[in-house]
């Protein structure tokens, strides 16, 4: 199998998916043309990400990276979440096939987009 056991584990048993009804930061990245779309929902309280979920249209790697990324930012500070790199996500998944690299980039972008959305809403 070309995916690591960790990837498959996150793909098959992911639980962080779905909407957050009162999310105050939502990031929408990717496009259907390339086959991967990620929506990241954040609930941020006192600069802390108290809840995070995702909705993903995409392949195994897209779903696993969304799941892992969301897992990694739950309960941490925004400033820390902004520093989460695609590399860190990939490593946490014990690696990704080369041609799936863009999925981890998408997860990073999704989180950044959601945080940006939060700031754009709260600073208004």
């Amino acid at each position, binding site marked *: 199998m070309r*995916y690591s056991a960790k990837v*498959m584990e996150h*793909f*098959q048993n*992911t639980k962080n*998916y*779905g909407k957050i009804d009162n999310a105050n930061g939502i990031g*929408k990245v990717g496009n*259907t*043309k*390339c*086959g*991967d*779309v*990620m*929506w990241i929902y954040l609930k941020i309280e006192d600069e802390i990400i108290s809840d995070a979920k*995702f*909705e*993903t*249209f*995409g*392949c*195994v*790697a*897209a*779903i696993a990276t969304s799941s892992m990324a969301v897992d990694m930012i739950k309960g941490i500070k925004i400033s820390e979440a902004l520093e989460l790199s695609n590399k860190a996500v990939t490593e946490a998944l014990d690696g990704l096939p080369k*041609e*799936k690299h863009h999925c981890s980039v998408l997860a990073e972008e999704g989180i950044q987009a959601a945080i940006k959305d939060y700031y754009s809403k709260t600073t208004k």
Partner: protein
Amino acid sequence: MNINNYFDYNATTPTDARVFEAMEDFYKEKFHNPSSFYREAGVVANEIENARENIAKLINCKPDEIFFTGSGTESDNLAIIGTVRKLKDKGNHIITSKIEHPAVLESCKYLEKNGFEVTYLTVDRDGLINLEDLKKAIKSSTLLISIMFANNEIGVIQPIKEIADIAKNNKILFHTDAVQAVGKLKIDVKDLGVDLLSLSSHKIYGVKGIGVLYKKKGLRIEPLIFGGGHENGLRAGTENVAGIIGTGKAAEIAMEEMETEELRIKPLREKIIKELFEKIPELILNSSATNCLYNTINISIKHIEGEAILALLDAHGMSFSSGSACSSKSLDPSHVLLAIGLEHAEAHGSLRISLGKYSTEEGVNKLIEVLPPVVERLRSMSPFWNKG
């Protein structure tokens, strides 16, 4: 693995046990080089001719019109590149379709880089080419028309006889990639009037590594591989004897069992379509309802992606393929699904179910049971699915 759960016969088929049995001795006692002088080599050479005869019977041609190659891909390449190189003084134009196998499309792209011109015909929602378009595409420089018999992804069957007639009326050669059609459909190259036809052993319960090219008697094309005069000078290299013998056996079996297999498999296909469409909302049927291989189903499952579907099915031990970009090596989803007019997202979310000799009611029931919750789970993760 459980063969009941294999739904990817268009990708490859298991070697029939009788084929394996027929080959076995050619790895053991009958290992001799058929080009050698001695008696044992003559026996091997004769067995190759028997295999050639069996394949000739399957498509109704003469044995000396059958040439063995190393794959269906090689047969396609030899037919296309070999023909137009031979005829290059007479023209430089080729007509094919947008939904051909990469073996044809990439051959054409290579030729485009080398001075040839290629017209890629569009297809309709069913995947059928338009015969009027074909006629319009013909120029005085057209050397060859190459249109596949049946498509590997959506199963659409083209009007081969009509295409052959158009080719003949315009004195253009006609090649058909029949890799997915041979062994499933009754094919008579003489009646159809095709000049070149490709088939592949591993799609008809033979073996990987053997392709066949039918080349009409008298037609001269350029080889791709030069050396000793094997295959009447058309394809040099010591023959894959066991593979050829196995392919002959596979052809013999296909002749005998093709019709009863069709009768057995058709209702399984119908059942799958009926039940999946009942149980799963928002499906698109990509395989033609009227001109389709009886073993092939292609659906798009809206709002989710194909590789993810394959992965969850794989976790149930079930094997399928998809036209999603992720299951191939490119970034674009299936060129075939885009050509019949699907949106990118729909093409990414396709599932090909292809049945065959060892498909059973039991396997089909499992598919019908397993697929709906798989779809439901992935849709529940999808931003596009209205969980309302």
